[in-house]
């Protein structure tokens, strides 16, 4: 345990230094993370105004609250591992990682957390600035903030575990970008990224309940908007925990097979 703490301390120091080197890349990611929800926000607000002030159960100002919160939730939970894994295999850095006596996932966790610690203050400032512009209707009760901590951590864990698992497709195919595209479309629609899930047909909502995507983004957003009752929130956390466990099992199984394939066909 002490060794792992020490490893993480050092990993953080290293990735902090790295992330500060990648300032431009981080800034570009951040711009993307601001623009995407901003576009949805403008589109939905306009739609709401033209339909007498609301679409479904969302008013113009509630859309503003939804997408500004989503901006932050998405930023806290995103990973870039699906773009990177193939590169690691092609360029041999995975081999170097496999020679070390620790699982390569630890450095990815450290990378993700440290990049977020660096960029999150900026994202909060940007979101606050946009809030002055769009007047979001946001007044959550204090318990929501408390509940949001575990919910966000679990949401990040689910997204990280599933994307880390999917990224390993690179062990078997060279066309990972096709898989990535399908995944990102599913996330876009079923996580609540493009629109609140309550605006979708009932069948889509049911599907979203049973798939992992909503638990990565939509659920924390709805919680922060005060749209989820305490009991529902408890159940939601239970579902999130279940997805984390399933994600861990999948990741381990895929990793074992992936490494076996890798070491069979030529590392």
């Amino acid at each position, binding site marked *: 345990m002490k*060794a792992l703490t*020490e*490893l993480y*301390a*050092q*990993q953080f*120091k*290293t990735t902090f*230094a*790295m992330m500060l*080197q*990648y300032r431009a890349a981080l800034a570009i990611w951040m711009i993307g993370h601001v623009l995407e929800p901003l576009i949805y926000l403008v589109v939905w607000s306009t739609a709401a105004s033209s339909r007498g002030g609301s679409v479904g159960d969302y008013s113009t100002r509630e859309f503003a609250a939804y997408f500004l919160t989503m901006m932050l939730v998405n930023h806290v939970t995103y990973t870039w591992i699906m773009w990177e894994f193939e590169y690691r295999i092609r360029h*041999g*850095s995975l*081999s*170097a990682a*496999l*020679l*070390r*006596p*620790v699982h390569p996932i630890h450095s990815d966790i450290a990378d993700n957390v440290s990049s977020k610690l660096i960029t999150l203050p900026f994202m909060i400032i940007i979101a606050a600035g946009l809030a002055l512009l769009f007047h979001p209707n946001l007044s959550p009760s204090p318990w929501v903030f408390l509940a949001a901590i575990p919910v966000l951590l679990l949401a990040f864990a689910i997204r990280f575990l599933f994307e880390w698992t999917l990224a390993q497709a690179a062990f078997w195919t060279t066309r990972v970008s096709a898989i990535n595209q399908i995944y990102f479309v599913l996330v876009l629609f079923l996580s609540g990224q493009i629109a609140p899930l309550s605006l979708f047909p009932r069948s889509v909502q049911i599907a979203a309940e049973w798939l992992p995507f909503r638990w990565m983004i939509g659920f924390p957003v709805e919680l922060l908007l005060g749209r989820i009752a305490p009991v529902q929130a408890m159940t939601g956390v239970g579902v999130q925990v279940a997805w984390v466990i399933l994600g861990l099992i999948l990741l381990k199984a895929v990793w074992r097979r992936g490494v*076996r394939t890798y*070491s*069979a*066909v*030529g*590392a």
Partner: protein
Amino acid sequence: MTSPVIHIHNLHKTYVVSERESGILAAVQSLFHRHTKKIAAVDGISFDLAPGEVVGFLGPNGAGKTTTLKMLSGLLHPTEGEVSVLGHVPWKREKLFLRQIALVMGQRNQLIWDIPALDSFELNRAIYRIPTEDYRRLLAELTELLELESVLRKPVRNLSLGERMKCEIAAALLHRPGVVFLDEPTIGLDVTMQRRIRTFIAEYNRRFGATILLTSHYMADVEALCKRVVVIHHGRLLFDGDLAELVQKFTPYKTIAVQLGDCQFDLRSYGDVVSCTDGQFTLRVPKAETARVTERLLADLPVIDLLVEDPPIEEVIERVFAQETA
């Protein structure tokens, strides 16, 4: 006889590669029926390394050296045969095993590109759980031996190839591995840097009693470091024994390059004339007569320049191979 640190018996590695003819028709056909071909990269080799040995692992490109090193370090799963390193089966990649070995590949980098090498070293300290005291002491030693002082704090991307290689080697040895696999550690480096790395490898072996298996295309590396060499070609073992014996046995010749300014001379009485371009003759002379022939050349002819060389390592291996098939 102490038990071997590295034991390889009847080791095989076969790659399955798909292949097709060029052209659209072939591309379409390959959608439905893929032609695959088995390629034996390593085809039944056996050898042992005793503790503290430094062995040169030689062979032309594609001979199966890197594949073997990867099987020894646990990156590749053998198709058939036995491998054991320090009593471990490498491909299981047990932590205890990984903590005791290092694989340094000339063109692969384990250092993080955008930050100083020292930061990567610190990370390795945590990864390998090196006690702080040991780390400091070894880092100081490595810094001195490899003359790293001025490069440790620069971002790795700003280092020259040689500086980077020195840092790679230092990073790989911080946890003081007892078994070290070096794949072309001096490739692309200038002569001074090659010599420094060579001296360092010898010193590391002497000081820590490490067992080292090294591949190199530079005869000088092998001559300076390895008493014993293992030669493979097309995945098969061709020679395993003393370097001196290999050179004696398979290259009883030296090459003399002599610049006379003119190709009109008849040098047949001195040795085999291999070629003459721009007034430079290349002669092949039996090893034992090298000194005598050189003396005669210098005495008899208007020599502008003269150079005595061992045949390149590729040629030695070529001869070993020719011998084997003959």
